[in-house]
Each structure stands twice: as C-alpha cells, then as structure tokens.
C-alpha cells in the first residue's frame, strides 16, 4: 500500500481568499458570519451567514468562462489553482492519465437553479440561457478542474450532504493508497447562499438567527457558509522523489451509515466512523491530540458527537482538544470538511489549535475541551476531521505530521 501525503492546499471562504489568510483568521478566532446580502433576503427569517465578500468573479474569469461557471465552480477553480500551484505539479502523459479529481458538493449549481427558476416561474420568461444544465450540474466543478489541469484519470463528484468533501477526500486517499492514481485533486465546494438555498434550510428550523455557538449550552442552531477547499493528495514516494513540500500525511479514513434516521444523528454511527478511521490509520487512540469536530451548533449534533468521542476515547477524551471552526466560517455543507481540513493542517504544522468561538456557557452534555474562544498553542501528532451528514452518512479522516 502507498502512503498518501498532501502537497498543495487552496481555499476561498468567508475568512479569507487563500490558505494563509484563512488560517490567520482561525488563529485569531475571527468570525466570518454577518448579514446576508442577496436578492429577496428581506423575505427570509434567517438573515445571517458566512458569505464570501469582496470577491469579483469578473476579475478572475472571462465572460465565456462566467457563462459556464456557477459560483460553486468559481470557488472550486480558485482553490484548485492555489493548491496545484503550491504542489508544483504539472500533468502530462502518464502522470495526467494517473491523476484525477474527486470533489464534494451538496447543492452543486444551486444559485444557477435559483436564478433560472425565478426567471421562468416568477418572471414568466420562456427562455433560459443554453448553458443552464452544464452550469448547474453537480459534476461541473470537477469537470472544469480536470479540463484546466489536464487530469485524465478518474474524476467524479460525491454528494453526501454535510459529509460530501470528507467522503470525496476519502475516495482520493484510497485511490492513491491502492496504487490506482499518483495524484488527486480533492476537497469540496458549496455556494448555497441564495434566496432558495437559505429558504429551504429555514424550513427545517435548525438555523440560528444570531450566531453559531458549537458546544455552548446557549447554542441555537447552525449558520451556513460558502466557499471551497481543495487539496493535492499525492503518492508519498512520488512527492518525496521530486522534493515536494509535504503539508501532512493522510493516515486513515472510515465511513459508516447510521441506517436509522434521515436527520437525527446517531452516536453509534459517529463512534464507528471515528474508531474505524483510527483502525484504518493503525494509530493508538491516545496519539490523537486534536479533532476538528463536525460541531454544527445544533442541539442534537453537538451532544451526540461529544458522546461518540467520549465513547471512542474513554479517559483520553479528557486529554484531547476538539473544536468547531464552523463558528467562524459557517457550515459549508458539501465543502465544509475541506475548509476544516485547513484547521487540521494548521494544528499539525504550526502547533496552533483553532478555537470554537462564540462559546458562552458549558453544556454538561458536551463536556470536552472545546478550545473555547481563543486559539491554543500545542504540538499534536495525529488529528481527526469529523463529518456527519443528514441521512446518517459519516466520514472521518485521520492525518499526521510527517
């Protein structure tokens, strides 16, 4: 089996438009959540979110590209360009054939759907732009990445709601580990912050109207974010032979299904995914120093996740740190695990643990060290990233410093 390392990272999200500015915001515990700005927002009851501000697509993409790139594709390409540039890889010949793209998204081109449904239903138009379909399809982002970088191996999109990007990165990991591929562009993207996107979530009544406060007794729901996180996963021997800078090693991955309820999380399903990732990584649980939590800030998730962590780690649960960076960048749904992986890399490489901000009051049902409000300096060797989706689909990655 091959070892798998990360040799490039890129992002755009509410905290920053590259990795350095995002990690700086995480270190400072800065909040990217604010008033939403888009058409018809006044008809929503939930009017906050972690929106990407100050981003002008016209300055990055030409008119023809913009006619084909939904916002989720734009985010993906920006992050992918950063990641590939950092890796220093180019894709020709056999290398191109042995490299691909696996990305997570939940809504795909939801903004394109929203705009065009509005045009035909509300405005009564009978004609839509010819590229509506290639723009809104969930695999558009993965396809455009494959075209931009000449990645001719396996490429596809994974849609498992809030676990999409962890499932995607898990696939990329396994494809390299098995020897099937040399390098994979992977991560995820989401751009659901439009009227229809938020209105649908409003209906579930799990959204906070004021803040995302994971693990705090005062938490009152999740807050949506948008953006992308994209990474280059690469065969360790290949990366080493070319002298690439290695940002971390992906040690293990596990996925489980609750097989129970379409929205309520299960402690057993989450615990099986966490312990499965440790088993796959072949590391003792006592080596885990930090967990980037799913930590949505809903009543149900945070207590269930805390109980699952306590179950898996036993007494070591009191020694490890667990934080939810969703308190800062919001919940990026299908792209969330990818942006959260940046907090994991920061923990491994810089020894800085991103905080859970907005934390006000301990909850006895979340009695873990959640790194409240301020980042902490601490060397860690092994970290986990949790993602637990609606539909009971769980995906956990284990990473280490190399």
């Amino acid at each position: 089996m091959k070892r798998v390392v990360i040799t490039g990272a890129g992002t755009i999200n509410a905290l920053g438009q590259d990795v350095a500015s995002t990690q700086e915001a995480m270190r400072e515990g800065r909040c990217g959540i604010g008033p939403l700005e888009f058409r018809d927002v006044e008809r929503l009851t939930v009017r906050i979110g972690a929106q990407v501000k100050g981003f002008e697509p016209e300055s990055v993409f030409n008119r023809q590209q913009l006619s084909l790139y939904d916002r989720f594709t734009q985010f993906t390409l920006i992050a992918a360009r950063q990641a590939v540039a950092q890796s220093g890889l180019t894709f020709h010949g056999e290398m191109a054939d042995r490299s691909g793209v696996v990305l997570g998204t939940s809504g795909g081109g939801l903004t394109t759907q929203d705009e065009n449904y509005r045009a035909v239903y509300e405005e009564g138009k009978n004609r839509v732009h010819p590229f509506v379909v290639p723009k809104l399809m969930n695999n558009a982002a993965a396809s455009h990445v494959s075209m931009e970088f000449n990645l001719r191996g396996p490429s596809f999109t994974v849609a498992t709601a809030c676990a999409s990007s962890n499932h995607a990165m898990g696939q990329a990991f396994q494809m390299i580990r098995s020897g099937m591929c040399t390098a994979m562009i992977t991560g995820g993207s989401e751009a659901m912050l439009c009227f229809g996107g938020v209105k649908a979530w409003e209906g579930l009544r799990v959204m906070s109207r004021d803040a995302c406060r994971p693990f705090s007794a005062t938490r009152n729901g999740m807050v949506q974010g948008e953006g992308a996180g994209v990474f280059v996963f690469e065969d360790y021997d290949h990366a080493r032979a070319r002298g690439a800078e290695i940002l971390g090693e992906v040690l293990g991955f596990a996925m489980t299904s609750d097989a129970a309820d379409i929205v309520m999380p299960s402690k057993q399903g989450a615990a099986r995914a966490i312990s499965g990732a440790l088993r796959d990584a072949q590391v003792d649980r006592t080596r885990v120093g930090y967990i980037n939590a799913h930590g949505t800030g809903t009543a149900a998730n945070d207590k269930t996740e805390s109980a699952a962590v306590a179950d898996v780690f036993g007494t070591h649960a009191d020694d490890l740190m667990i934080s939810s960076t969703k308190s800062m960048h919001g919940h990026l749904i299908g792209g969330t695990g990818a942006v959260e992986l940046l907090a994991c890399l920061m923990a491994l490489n810089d020894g800085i643990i991103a905080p859970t901000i907005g934390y006000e009051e301990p909850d006895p049902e979340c009695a873990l060290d959640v790194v409240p409000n301020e980042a902490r300096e601490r060397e860690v060797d092994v970290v986990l990233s949790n993602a637990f989706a609606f539909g009971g689909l769980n995906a956990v990655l284990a990473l280490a410093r190399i």
Partner: protein
Amino acid sequence: MNVKDKVIEIVAEQAMLEPSDITMESTPESIGIDSLGLVEAIFAIEEAFDISVPFNANAPEESDFDISSVATIVAGIERLIAEQKS
C-alpha cells in the same frame, strides 16, 4: 440599431472580436465560434429581438434557419421578425 449591426455585435462578442472584424461573409468557423458558442449566440439573438429561432444543435443543417454566414443569419432573423411580429 438595425438587425445587421445588432447581429454583428452579438457575434463579435461571442467570438471575442471587435465588430469591425466581422463581415457579412464571416462564417461561425472562420471567426472561431464552436457549436456551444453558436447555441449561446442564438440565445442572445432570441433575447435581443424577442423572437424564437428554430435551431436544433443536433442537426443544424435540418433546422429552418441558415447559420452558414452572418448574411444568412441576418436574413433569417429579418424573416422571423416579419413572421413572428406581424
């Protein structure tokens, strides 16, 4: 703006050229408009003139709309305007 000037403007934008680079004899291929670009240009024409253009990208030659040059496109649009707006 007359039909000819508007069509040249739309075609030029699609081809990422200046309108002065487009002649009545220009063909989609000669100015680098591929099949996807052609579909987008026809959408822009429908929007600009508020007409419906009978064009099937699967079988362009069977469509009742001749796209072989700017001249035939202009003539086709003038006919459609006369039919659909009369």
